[in-house]
């Protein structure tokens, strides 16, 4: 049976819509999967740094090792080097929002640390673990990923409680947990958009 012009156009329209949906989804998936490596980078860096400072403080008894935290922004240089291998990977709205969330977290953390060290004594662990949890939960909300939202909540709220109860170097293990959660977020994103 011969197909009418409308039927042919209908099929073409369906094919066009399918092409649009597929292309948009592929592009979105590629960009988000690519962004997952930065979560893993920062998570690993946070885990290694917090464990190293914990061990150094624990075995030398000196809290001065905390100054090593100021080396954390080096992660931005590593991220920049990693970015060179992205081969023209574009940025989309979600990737930009995630980047902004973690940049704001980084700026706040550095400022709070500087104020605590040089101006007024603040409970740095408490403050940073709370904003780390908030950043994690917001990232989860942006990604529409409940495990990440809940992990951020547990880290922020539970971490605040533990930060008050636990003394000296043991507090650093909260950041180790935060680092593991951050890396796990990256792996979750990679899995979600594979």
């Amino acid at each position: 049976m011969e197909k009418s012009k409308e039927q042919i156009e209908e099929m073409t329209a369906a094919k066009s819509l399918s092409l649009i949906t597929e292309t948009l989804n592929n592009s979105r998936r590629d960009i988000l999967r690519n962004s997952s490596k930065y979560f893993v980078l920062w998570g690993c860096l946070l885990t290694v740094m917090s464990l190293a400072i914990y061990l150094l403080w624990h075995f030398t008894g000196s809290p001065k090792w905390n100054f090593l935290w100021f080396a954390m922004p080096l992660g931005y240089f590593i991220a920049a080097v990693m970015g060179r291998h992205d081969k023209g990977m574009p940025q989309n709205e979600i990737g930009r929002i995630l980047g902004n969330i973690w940049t704001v977290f980084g700026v706040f953390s550095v400022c709070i640390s500087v104020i605590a060290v040089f101006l007024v004594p603040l409970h740095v662990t408490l403050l940073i673990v709370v904003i780390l949890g908030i950043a994690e939960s917001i990232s989860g909300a942006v990604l529409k990923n409940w495990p990440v939202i809940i992990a951020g909540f547990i880290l922020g709220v539970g971490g605040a409680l533990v930060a008050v109860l636990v003394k000296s170097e043991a507090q650093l293990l909260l950041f180790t947990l935060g680092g593991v959660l951050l890396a796990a977020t990256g792996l979750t994103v990679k899995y979600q958009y594979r």
Partner: protein
Amino acid sequence: MFPKLDPLLHSELRLAVMSILVGVDEADFTYLKKQTGATSGNLSVQIDKLMAAGYITVEKGFKGKMPRTTCKITAAGQEAFEGYVKALKEYIS
């Protein structure tokens, strides 16, 4: 009466390019080529057509020492794309 489909967008490669650009800030030629699976020559021709229609802007520059062509959707392109999708939906419904 069905709305007329924009002939410029009613082509597989141009539509794929527009679909990518509508979801990102900007995309370079290499990325578009990889995503669409088109040849460089064909992609260049289609990009030129979209640019001539004012649907996208094309910037040629360098990333380090490598030449880089970056494409970005314009407001007119965004509007045309939305109109095209709307028309397609009317065909289907």
